[in-house]
């Protein structure tokens, strides 16, 4: 469903991705690992359509459609979702309001009827139970005053509501204590389905104990230098990243 071919990306004068090739099928979970600065976050940001990067070569297609041609909101409506590493605060904008606006934009695009306030509320209350978020969340501003753990849970809650086909998780485990990590992982696991693909970027193997990937890739200096199954992640944990580059 997602095919990345020889993707090369720069930001300003700096070359960050040097020819990424990756194919993701529906139902699969891919983990992208690698040291800091290897280009992991850039990859998912580019897939979600963030400004400030120039694609100098290569292509990305989602269900045969050129993803790079689409504006970020069009990508979201086509089923791409990015769970941010650092979810931004938007003061004064209600959490639920933002999410409802997003869901309805996506539903409209799919030709589904928009949800009214009551329908939306009952939907989100279900999903909040899953993410163990209390009712006060409904009245708060977008990520306003949220703890690190709350922000990450909020990202997965949004994913649960928007039901993407391709979910990109950017360092979703960073800054989480073990309890919060369990909640987040439980949420992600409940969203695994034969129709949905998940690409998660992480620095640590720890996350993979809770969300088991089908494929693991090691990114170094903007290239995938090694691919394997979850055993690769364990080996990385034991031996570090250096040997993958040497190999």
């Amino acid at each position, binding site marked *: 469903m997602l095919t990345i071919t020889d993707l090369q990306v720069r930001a300003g004068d700096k070359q960050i991705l040097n020819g990424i090739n990756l194919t993701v099928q529906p139902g699969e979970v891919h983990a992208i690992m690698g040291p800091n600065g290897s280009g992991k976050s850039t990859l998912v940001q580019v897939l979600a359509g963030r400004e400030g990067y120039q694609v100098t070569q290569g292509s990305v297609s989602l269900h045969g459609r050129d993803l790079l041609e689409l504006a970020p909101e069009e990508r979201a409506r086509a089923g791409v*979702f990015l769970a941010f590493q650092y979810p931004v605060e*938007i003061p004064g*904008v209600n959490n639920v309001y933002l999410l409802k606006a997003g869901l309805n*934009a*996506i539903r409209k695009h799919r030709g589904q009827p928009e949800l009214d306030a009551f329908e939306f509320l009952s939907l989100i209350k279900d999903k909040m139970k899953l993410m163990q978020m209390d009712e006060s969340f409904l009245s708060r501003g977008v990520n306003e005053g949220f703890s690190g753990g709350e922000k990450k849970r909020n990202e997965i809650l949004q994913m649960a509501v928007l039901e993407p086909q391709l979910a990109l998780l950017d360092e979703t485990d960073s800054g989480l204590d073990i309890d919060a990590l369990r909640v987040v992982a439980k949420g992600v696991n409940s969203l695994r389905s034969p129709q949905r693909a998940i690409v998660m970027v992480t620095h640590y193997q720890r996350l993979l104990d809770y969300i088991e990937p089908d494929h693991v890739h090691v990114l170094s200096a903007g290239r995938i230098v090694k691919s394997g199954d979850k055993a690769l992640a364990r080996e990385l944990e034991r031996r570090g990243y250096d040997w993958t580059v040497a190999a």
Partner: protein
Amino acid sequence: MASNPQNDTLEALVNQKYRHGFVTDIESDTVPPGLDEDVIRLISLKKQEPDFLLQWRLKAFQHWRTMREPHWAQLRVAPIDYQAISYFSAPKARKDAPKSLDEVDPKLLETYAKLGVPLHERARLAGIAVDAVFDSVSVATTFKERLAAAGVIFCSFSDAVRNHPALIEQYLGTVVPHTDNFFAALNSAVFTDGSFVYVPKGVRCPMELSTYFRINAANTGQFERTLIIADEGSYVSYLEGCTAPMRDENQLHAAVVELITLADAQIKYSTVQNWYPGDEHGVGGIYNFVTKRGECRGANSRISWTQVETGSAITWKYPSCVLSGDNSVGEFYSVALTNNYQQADTGTKMIHIGRNTRSTIVSKGISAGHGQNSYRGLVKILPSATNARNFTQCDSLLMGDRCGAHTFPYMEVRCPSASVEHEATTSKIGDDQLFYCLSRGISEEDAVNMIVNGFCKSVFKELPMEFAVEAQNLLAVSLENAVG
């Protein structure tokens, strides 16, 4: 930040054409341009004013002639030729003033309809009395009976001069003296009409009071005078909203608003200002040099100013509170948006005189295009104001990289037991915030509106409900794409 396509999109979003641009063709009874004592005498004569008012005007005029235009604000103002302005313009009088809406010029009513200001029906449904200022003379006043039953006087300034001269003589110029500043002095000399409110002791005004200001005849300066008096233990909420037709020349607007609260009284004064801001090249637009000030004269009284300023080419405006009464409270909540070449220098003055006086200032400035937005505020605490407290928050939001935001907070604290807090932030409408919304499937236009409205939320919640909705719409319109 070499090239940022999001800036270009933002530019398109904020590039919104002014919707209320049209000129109504009503024969005006206009005095030729120019200003001297004879013109002032003529205005006073046309309005059949008592002598004290004429003398007051003449004193103001003599003082004005000794004054110079202020140039301390962060504004670039093209020279104004005060002799080129016509100082009186009234819709041509039929034999008598209209007694009901049926007698009002249908064209005038049409104008209001175009503006979405349905004087006759929707106003009644909304429970709002409308004292409509068209050019300089009030032509229609509604709800008088219901207000009269409560003892509330709500009428045009001219009517008040005729029917309640003692109140005018007692209170006019006691908060903003005729010597106060260049524009207030000019206004005092030449004002033609405005609104007057008196709420008697212990009365809670049974409805929100609303005035829609319009500027219409070409080259006619507008010099309104508003005076609101809340007697002991009374309460009134006053709404002021305005739009103006599109034109090329700059138009001077120098109003004066005076509020007075006696003991335990409260005035809530809300403004949505949407005058013609000039076109996208900075041509035309209203010059708004207005003096607004309230005095909490009695103990435990309260004055709240809430303003949403999206219009005018130049805004020079500092709604202020003089907190004379012990335990009195002054509040200022402001959203000011400047787009294209608009300039705003706005803020407030809180003068603490009484003991335990409190003031709150919340200012939200939004700059887009080449807009320049300044907050200028003074918190002055006199030695008598023991335990006075002030909290000030000024936030600026920048859209694009050619606009500017400036903050000039002045503090003068002469009382050791006072406490003054000031918080200020400046942020760009974040690429991060925008991208976050987009990545949830929300369109760019909706995302910008959402972020801007969120930014203004703490001010909007101070507005009366129907006004809050209007303010949100206005902001959306001001930032909306020209298409649609």
